[in-house]
């Protein structure tokens, strides 16, 4: 039977939404599911992880060295813990992408990146070529080390009550990597990666000031705000708002693409959205080919009008 270790991602004392999604993938594999939380003081986050449905145990690894998510520091501890498990799964954001290969290399196994569907204990689907092809793969013998594509899984519900166990991990930690700081974009809006509704603006917004119409509309419907690569590269919004192949890959219930033409690289990031609404001046814009609802019009008229009508 599989015994699966899920590595928890968290920030500011909050478990990330991606962990519930990673547990969902683990449930697809089946077997016993445990979560490891690494932090300076892991107790509070471990309690949150213990509530996730399907989890049998949470390992709280408290160590001052774990105050920040530094891959080089976490990897040796995970390698040590991994000995008792058939699978080690990571949420597939930048945290897991940075960390998982460092663990896989030490365990001497090839890693499976971005699993989007589970067929069995070692059989998964994963995207290649920016999602333009989907492969079914078989992981090799040994520990299965994988990252989970968050847009492909619905997070498990809360309601569980797993045991939390404080664990000490005996591993030599390197001193070659020092965390300096995180410049986070503070926002009162929902998190782009996990929001049910997202409004993204493109190059057509024309300036950072003009993005206000996007924010106003998003706030009206309780949506997170994203942007196309063109809007980010033009400096209208910070890079962590980029939706697309090289930015965030998201799967909201409702997605508004506003003034976004629909380059392949942007579409790769929204393929899993339940409903796509496109608003664009150009009736020939490729975004209309994938939109469930399209409206040809000037966004500077359409958006305020929509905001007023809701």
């Amino acid at each position: 039977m599989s015994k699966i270790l899920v590595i928890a991602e968290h920030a500011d004392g909050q478990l990330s939404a991606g962990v519930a999604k990673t547990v969902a993938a683990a449930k697809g594999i089946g077997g016993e599911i445990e979560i490891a939380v690494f932090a300076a003081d892991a107790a509070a986050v471990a309690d949150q992880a213990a509530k996730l449905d399907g989890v049998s145990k949470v390992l709280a690894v408290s160590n001052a060295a774990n105050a920040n998510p530094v891959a080089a520091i976490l990897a040796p501890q995970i390698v040590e813990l991994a000995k008792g498990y058939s699978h080690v799964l990571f949420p597939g954001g930048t945290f897991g992408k940075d960390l998982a290969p460092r663990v896989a290399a030490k365990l001497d196994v090839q890693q499976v990146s971005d699993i989007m569907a589970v067929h069995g204990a070692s059989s998964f689907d994963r995207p290649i070529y920016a999602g333009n092809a989907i492969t079914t793969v078989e992981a090799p013998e040994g520990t299965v080390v994988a990252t989970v594509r968050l847009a492909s899984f619905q997070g498990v519900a809360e309601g569980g009550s797993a045991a939390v166990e404080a664990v000490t991990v005996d591993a030599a930690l390197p001193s070659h990597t020092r965390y300096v700081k995180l410049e986070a974009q503070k926002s009162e809006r929902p998190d782009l990666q996990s929001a049910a509704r997202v409004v993204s603006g493109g190059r057509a917004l024309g300036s950072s000031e003009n993005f206000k119409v996007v924010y106003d509309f998003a706030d009206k419907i309780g949506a997170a705000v994203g942007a196309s690569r063109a809007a980010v590269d033009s400096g209208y919004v910070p890079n962590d708002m980029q939706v697309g192949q090289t930015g965030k890959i998201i799967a909201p219930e409702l997605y508004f693409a506003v003034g976004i033409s629909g380059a392949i690289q942007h579409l790769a990031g929204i393929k899993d959205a339940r409903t796509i609404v496109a608003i664009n001046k150009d009736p020939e814009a490729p975004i209309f080919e994938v939109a469930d609802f399209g409206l040809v019009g000037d966004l500077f008229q359409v958006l305020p009008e929509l905001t007023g009508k809701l």
Partner: protein
Amino acid sequence: MKALVSVKRVVDYNVRIQVKPDGSGVVTDGVKHSMNPFDEIAMEEAVRLKEKGTVTEIVAVTIGGAKNEETLRTALAFGADRAIHIKDDGEIQPLTAAKALAAAVKKEDAKLFLCGKQAIDDDANQTGQMVASLLDIAQATFASKVEIDGEKAVVTREVDAGLEVLEVDLPAVITTDLRLNEPRYLKLPDIMKAKKKPIETVSLADLGVTAGAGVKTTKTAPPPSRSKGIMVKTTDELVEALKGKGLL
């Protein structure tokens, strides 16, 4: 200090990918190939560090068949001083690539190992981290700013939550993200000069690497397609349609 930059030959990013009808993979024969765009950014960064005097020698390295020589010539035209071609005609998975590249870093005694954060063919996003892991050295992935200061590097990383800054001791692995720089256009004289620069050919065996068990791809399929939906004419129609579906 010496920088080693790994460059991968991939299907050009402008090519529309076709899945083979029998599901055995994607069509790569007769399709334009070029250097992985993220690796171009790594090359450009190495060249800029050399122009600043921080890096004194750039060695480009690739793994693959005979055609990969083109990719190395591109790297040499960028400004690499010489190149290493790890020749192998089989499928090279990330851990195998990382073992070979780690051996090359050791052999060259390089202080910096640069590569793209991922290759746009398999999108694995693993090799750089694995090189760092195998060598037990620091890694700074998804870099959008790199400052070298003596035996240290301060690297700004693009993470989901914003921009993270790490300080790492050298030697270190740095994987490059889109906004680190804009690679230069290659000029004809540089392309001509690149033809005369030396390329050393080695095998995986020369580096003491054997490919272990790999991830086996059993099927390749096109993604489910989205169909074109409804065009509405007014915001009223749009609001009505979305409310009708319970979305607003």
